[in-house]
């Protein structure tokens, strides 16, 4: 059975994909749907949800449209989630590949390094990094990448370690291919499916981390984000519940969708493991 058909058999994965498509469309269409900046007050302050059809999710203390904030927040969440994961995957694949392929002392050193980063409390480290390099989209993305690459490195190392002794790799060695070339063209393509599964789940975690950082006030000051909206609404919980409820639902739904996709990919790529995980 083809990969796509196996994926399509998983209802949860299809729902996840549908939700993610909607979130991506909203993120792209945000400037069209809401031409006015989400920081700009547009309506009466503290309108409840559905009180005014123009602002279905209500407005905050400064009359800013919650729906517009959520639409723009989707851009930040997806952007940071995807780019930080990409950076983490590049770091993890590079270190894991070197460790698994060369083994010996290189492996020892790189794995010590990886373990070190895995032991340090990840979120606390992200907080410290963002605080010190002043919160902006680059520092947030890099901080999340720095704390999330170790699992990739371990995974890739394991894959490389087991693939290295396979016959087709030995054949490539005999033919005279260089180490880097064997790693990139022989081993990596065969290790790609678990990397994709892990990466997809990492995007979800990265979005959660980003929202937590901006909830603590460590978001980019120029970009509206879901975590920031909840953080700003925290003190108004008693008076205006909708300010913190809707952005939270947006995070929950997006992260849930990405997790469902990740699990669907896992089942579709490793059919023999089906039903054993999760």
């Amino acid at each position, binding site marked *: 059975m083809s990969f796509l058909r196996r994926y399509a058999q998983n209802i949860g994965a299809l729902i996840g994909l549908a939700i993610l498509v909607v979130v991506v469309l909203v993120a792209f269409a945000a400037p069209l749907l809401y031409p006015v900046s989400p920081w700009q007050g547009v309506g009466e302050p503290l309108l409840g949800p559905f009180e005014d059809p123009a602002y279905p999710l209500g407005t905050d203390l400064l009359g800013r449209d919650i729906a517009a904030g959520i639409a723009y927040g989707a851009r930040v969440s997806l952007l940071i989630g995807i780019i930080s994961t990409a950076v983490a995957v590049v770091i993890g694949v590079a270190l894991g590949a070197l460790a698994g392929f060369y083994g010996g002392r290189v492996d020892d050193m790189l794995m010590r390094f990886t373990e070190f980063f895995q*032991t340090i409390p*990840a979120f606390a480290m992200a*907080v410290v990094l963002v605080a010190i390099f002043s919160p902006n989209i680059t520092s947030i993305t890099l901080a999340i990448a720095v704390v999330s690459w170790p699992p990739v490195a371990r995974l890739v190392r394991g894959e490389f370690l087991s693939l290295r002794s396979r016959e087709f790799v030995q054949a490539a060695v005999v033919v005279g291919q260089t180490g880097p070339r064997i790693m990139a063209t022989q081993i990596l393509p065969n290790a790609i499916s678990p990397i994709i599964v892990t990466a997809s789940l990492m995007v979800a975690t990265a979005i959660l981390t980003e929202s*937590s950082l901006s909830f*603590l006030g460590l978001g980019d000051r120029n970009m509206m984000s879901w975590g920031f909206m909840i953080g700003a609404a925290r003190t108004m919980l008693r008076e205006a519940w909708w300010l913190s409820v809707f952005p939270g639902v947006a995070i929950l739904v997006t992260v849930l969708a990405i997790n469902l996709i990740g699990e669907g990919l896992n089942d579709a790529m490793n059919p023999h493991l089906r039903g054993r995980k999760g």
Partner: protein
Amino acid sequence: MKTLEFLIQRLAKAAFVVLGVVILNFLLIQLAPGDPAAVLAGEAGAGDEQFIAQLRAQFGLDQPLYVQLLSYLQNILSGDLGYSYRNQVPVADLIMERLPATLLLTGSAFVFSLVLGIVLGVLAAYKRGSLGDSLIMTGALVFYATPLFWVALMAVLVFSIHLDWLPPFDMESIGAGYTGWARAADIAHHLVLPTVTLGLFFTAVYTRLTRASMLEVMNLDFVKTARAKGVPKGRIIRRHVLRNAILPVFTFASVQAGQLVGGAVLTETVFAWPGIGRLMFDALMQRDYPVLLGVFLVTAAVVVLVNLVADLLYRFVDPRIETAG
């Protein structure tokens, strides 16, 4: 491998990580915005060049980096984590004062999530494919995707604001003057919401892990043998499967100690819990970098300690474990 050799190896590893964190911390201090001498001069109300240069010499800030690193290491080893200029207190004092509250919160959240997660995971595996299994796994999926701080806020909204069952802030009733058991009960009452909200995410993780691990072991030959012998199902689950399935859960749980601390920063911020997570948040707000980095260092050290203890416990729980792992 001999136990002593194992012990020394693990201690060396832990020391290595702590040393690494200290060096990392030192580098981060160097990168932190603001010249410490200028900050000091500012606090003292004088800003002229000569005074700043004098301060630099006095605190060794004009020394080469490695000399500064060595003296920093010396300070850390003697328990000096720096000075909080905003609060006018040594950082170590601030942290030590707050640490018990955080240990109480993370400890109870850990126990809560581990117990609930294992119970739910075993139930789901036992009734695999049933409605109960689907409900448990859907719940786990949802809480795995929910931001901690948002669960905390929603819990306050429902249980404190609307139902008025549980207190939304602080660790104990201010000014109530409880002592002894009354005070313990008061703290426990305040502990419920933070523990549950911090624990739910990890409950989801452990539930999924326990279920997967149980299902894996249930497929093994010795379980089939037990079933063929006619051992009752409940007994197979308890005596044969659970005992073997639980170890990966414990392994993972001990690795997660660091994540729990990160969650505590968020939970304590929402509930105004007087622990080091809240201290970290306040330090962020006040741009108090010595406190921020001090908290980071202490949490990392605590996590290393927890991992070390977990490693040693394994030796007793499962003697098969080799040190190479």
